[in-house]
Structures are given as C-alpha cells and as structure tokens.
C-alpha cells in the first residue's frame, strides 16, 4: 500500500471509519435481537462500502502473498459479513411484517422519520403487491363473490412487541414501567449503567433506538 493512501486515511478518515464500524456493529447486533425493524443506518453502510472499495483497490496493488494483503482481506470479509447479515436481517423482517411495515412506513415518511431506506421501501411495496397478486390469482379470484377481497387488516402480521429481550444499559435510565397483568401493581425498575436485564421489548423499544441500551 503506498504511503499517500495511508496518510490520507490517517488524517481524515481513520478515526471516523473506526467509529462508524463500531456503530454499525452495534446496529447489526440490535437489529438481530429486536423483534421489530429498527431505523436504518444507511449512511454507515455506505461509508463502510466506500472503505471496502478503497481498501480493495489498494490490496490489488500488493503482491498476493504479502502478509498485509491477508490481514486486510480478512478484515474486509469480517465487515462484509456484518453488512450482509445486517441487510438480510432487515429484509427478513420486511418480508415477515410487510403489510404492517408498509402502512407504518407511509406515515413515517410523511413525518420524515422513516425507518426504511428508499430501496427497502420499494422492495417492501413490490413484495406486498406480488403477494396480493399471487393470492388473488390462485384463490381469491375463484372463491364465491363476497369472499374475494384481499383483507389487508387480517393478513397483516405484526412483530411481537411483548417478546422478552436481554439488554445491557449503556447509561443509567430510571423508571421503566413493567406492566403487571394479573394484579394491578405495575412495577417500576431502574436500569443502572452496565447492568443487564431480561424484560419485555415494548417499554424499552425507544431506548434501543436512541442507544441508551444495547440488546445482548
């Protein structure tokens, strides 16, 4: 690798790239462990793709057997794994909850708080459309007249916000309310920095999104 490139990455990009990678890794971990789809981190994915591209060009300049080439390739494979797995996890959620996600996303787009990237949103809409057409062609168009509607409300599958997740608190958050279903004695707990808990996703969903807790 020539020194010019090294200088460049050291002065301008090095620190940010490292932070971006860490943030992306946390985002990946949260996405894997949360029941619902989380706000996208497209900027970070693109930043990492840029880094990969840049690095791959440089590796090609090195002799094949150079030790550095192996090390860089290995690191790139690690980052590619995170990116692929992150994006695939999101696609899986988009497919499973497609109707609900498209509906909610339409409202979020209006308020400028979209969770999906434009490509993901296009993918989700197309997915719903294909599903609707397929079910119509095969069954709905052939059943008796008043049964033919594709009932979006019934067909929508929602993530289970009540599912239990493990978390580690990145900072102290007080007063999380745990609903008590049997009695009427709701419980309140505090999440001290560094402490770990298992509890329902719903009361801590916002804390995952704003980074105050990390799912583990």
């Amino acid at each position, binding site marked *: 690798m020539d020194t010019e490139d090294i200088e460049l990455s050291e002065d301008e990009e090095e620190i940010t790239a490292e932070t971006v990678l860490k943030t992306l890794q946390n985002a990946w971990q949260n996405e894997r462990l949360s029941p619902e789809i989380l706000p996208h981190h497209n900027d970070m*994915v*693109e930043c990492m*793709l*840029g880094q990969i*591209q840049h690095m791959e060009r440089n590796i090609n300049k090195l002799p*094949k057997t150079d030790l550095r080439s*192996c090390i860089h*390739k*290995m690191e790139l*494979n*690690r980052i*590619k*794994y995170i*990116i*692929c*797995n992150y*994006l*695939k996890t999101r*696609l899986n959620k988009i*497919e499973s909850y497609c109707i609900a996600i498209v509906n909610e996303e339409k409202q979020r787009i209006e308020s400028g708080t979209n969770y999906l990237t434009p*490509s*993901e949103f*296009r*993918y989700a809409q*197309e*997915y719903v459309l*294909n*599903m609707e*057409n*397929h*079910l119509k*062609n*095969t*069954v709905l168009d*052939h*059943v*008796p*007249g008043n*049964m033919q509607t594709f009932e979006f409300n*019934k*067909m929508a599958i929602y993530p289970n916000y009540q599912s239990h997740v493990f978390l580690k608190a990145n900072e102290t958050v007080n007063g999380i309310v745990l609903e008590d279903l049997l009695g009427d004695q709701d419980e309140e707990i505090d999440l001290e920095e560094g402490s770990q808990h298992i509890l329902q996703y719903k009361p801590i969903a916002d804390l995952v999104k704003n980074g105050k807790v990390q799912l583990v």
Partner: protein
Amino acid sequence: MFGEKVIELLKEAERNRETIDLYNDEKIRQIIQEMHVLFKMNMSDANATTENKTLWTTVQVRHSALERNKRCLLAYLYNRMIKIKTLRWEFGSVLPPDVRELLSDSEYDWFSKYSTNLATYMRSLGEDIGYSGIDLTENLRPPKSLYIEVLCITDYGKLELEDGDVITLKKNSRHFLPTSECQTLIRQGVLKQII
C-alpha cells in the same frame, strides 16, 4: 362440508416443514368447489328468511364456514410462499427441474417476481457511491479463514477463480480454495468443507 379437506392439506404441510410438497391442485379445486356449494345454499336460504326467520342463523353459520375455508386456503398458500422464498435463497434464481415441478404455475410466477425484486434490491446497494451492488446470498457465516479445504461431492466441471486460475471439480477431489469463492458451491452441496 365444514373444512375437513382443507385441514388435511394443512396437516400435511405441518408434517413436512423441511421440504415443499407438490402443489395440491386437485384438493384446492375441490375446496373452492365446496365453497361455491355452501354459498349457493346460503343465497337460497337468505331469500327464504322472510318466511322463516330461524334460517338466518343457519346462513350465518355457513358464512363462518366459508370464512374459515378462505382463511385455511390463504394460510396454505402463504406458508408455501415462505418455503418458495427459501428456495430462492438456497438454490438461486434457477430451480432444478425436480423442484420446479413441485410449484404451481402461479407459484413459479411468484418465485420469478420475488427473484427479480430481490435482484433489483441487491443491485441498488451502494449505487450512490458507485458500487455495483452486493450479493446477500454470500458471506453467510462469520469468516474464520481466507482459505478452506473442501471435498468435491459431485462432478461439477471447471471453476474459474478470481485470480484467473481454472480448476476442475471432480467427484472426491480435494481442493484448498478461497472461502469467499466456494461458499455458494458448499451451500448447494457441490463441495463439503473438511474440518
């Protein structure tokens, strides 16, 4: 009469979760036929409710049965859709003929559309920064080493590697290959990783 056929269909699907069965065209037709019979009975009884009010309940009960049949049919198709999706991720966009023939025409059409939608999405990844897209069916496992040793399970033929080398994959031959270049073949059962 009240949805037994459709339940048989679902039980069969529930038993074979690991594979996809032949699309049961005949049974689906029979179930839809039954729904038409129920519907006709309901139409005539609904017209008779002016004279006999108690018939109205019977109409409602049949209507419930119709709704139930609809739910079951949709669940059958939907669960097959999910399996067909898995086929796309595992076999790729071209299905082997013996798998292809398990799907109905409409299902195959859905498969192709799913495949196209997925390809469009994958091509769009990173396009803003001049990237030509990412294949999400690769990089499936956390990387451990750049090269792995593999055993060839079937006579596959020639494989050209990124560096231009061409190797021949013959049954029982062993190779030391870049992990990134043989993942797909391992997933498809052409190669097996030797640990």
